[in-house]
């Protein structure tokens, strides 16, 4: 399958997904996995699209609708495809007073433990005067909770709360 990764970003408003996907559908493109989220009031989406057509053909389909909606877009040919899910076995929750470098520190420690991040969400909440950083990470690692906790331990002394818990996915 000849998948392409299509990314669109811009000012959020109702109807973007409907108009973009309608243009793709009319152009003969199908969707695979997608991820849309609003970041700082902006619309962001990444979509696996496939139409057995060229990059130029995708550009011709998307450019008009992106222009109409005031969106910037980017497309990349991609390796891989569907049905390649990896089930996370650990969750890491982080929160603390917002300061530069939290993500780099936490994920750096996780990477040293061979932790592969599968999902990461972070947000700045609280008040303007006292911003608080909250992050949740789900991922996979061939290690133990204790090992991960130990590797992240130093951060806790820097007024960041880090909590590691195993994820036991229930199959029923």
């Amino acid at each position, binding site marked *: 399958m000849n998948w392409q990764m299509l990314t669109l970003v811009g000012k959020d408003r109702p109807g973007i997904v409907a108009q973009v996907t309608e243009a793709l559908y009319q152009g003969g493109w199908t969707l695979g996995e997608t991820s849309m*989220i609003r970041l700082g009031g902006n619309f962001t989406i990444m979509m696996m699209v496939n139409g057995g057509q060229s990059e130029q053909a995708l550009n011709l389909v998307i450019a008009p609708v992106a222009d109409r909606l005031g969106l910037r877009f980017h497309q990349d040919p991609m390796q891989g495809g569907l*049905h390649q*899910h990896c*089930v*996370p076995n650990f969750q890491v929750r982080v929160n603390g007073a917002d300061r530069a470098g939290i993500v780099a520190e936490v994920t750096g420690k996780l990477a040293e433990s061979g932790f592969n991040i599968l*999902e990461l*969400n972070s*947000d700045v*909440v609280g008040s303007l005067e006292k911003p608080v950083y*909250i992050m*949740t990470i789900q991922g996979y690692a061939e290690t133990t909770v204790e090992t991960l906790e130990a590797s992240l331990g130093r951060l806790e002394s820097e007024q960041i709360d880090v909590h590691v818990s*195993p*994820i*036991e*996915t*229930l*199959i*029923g």
Partner: protein
Amino acid sequence: MAILEILELPDPRLKEVADEVVDFNEELLAFIEDLEETRLSGPAAVGIAAPQVGRQQRIIIIDCSTTRKPVPNHGRLVLVNPEITEWDGFELGREGCLSVPDYTGNVIRAERIKLHACCPTGEPLEYEMEGYEARALQHEVDHLDGILFVDRLVSRRTDLFQRKVYQVCAKNPAAQGRDG
């Protein structure tokens, strides 16, 4: 003994409400043996419900005694006509399903439940469950009501908004998809 075919989404039979078991007989016991053999034949499932193999009757099996990290559990349970009578608390957890291959997602379930049911020979049973076992029970009882975990998926950001969720489902978290 036989391994039965697992129905998979979007088979419409998975969306049916199953009937109460009325006849507690030899045939029922034989079916339960097949159901258990089917559960054990696939990928590490902690539970299975009769509708997943196309039998529209209220029969489930759960066994939470073999998790990686031990959890409170009652061992292997075969429950006929199970009915949850009390729900308390809520928590987010990741679930998958024999009937929905290649997908897992987050679902809110009650943390603690009380239930009554019958054993395969018809005698009444009562249980209190918590945590992972309560989750498994709720997942399987959902199958009896034609509900799959994908009908209860929550956003990946939901756990950042627990207060809102709590207001919605404090009374009965498991019922929100059914009633809402």
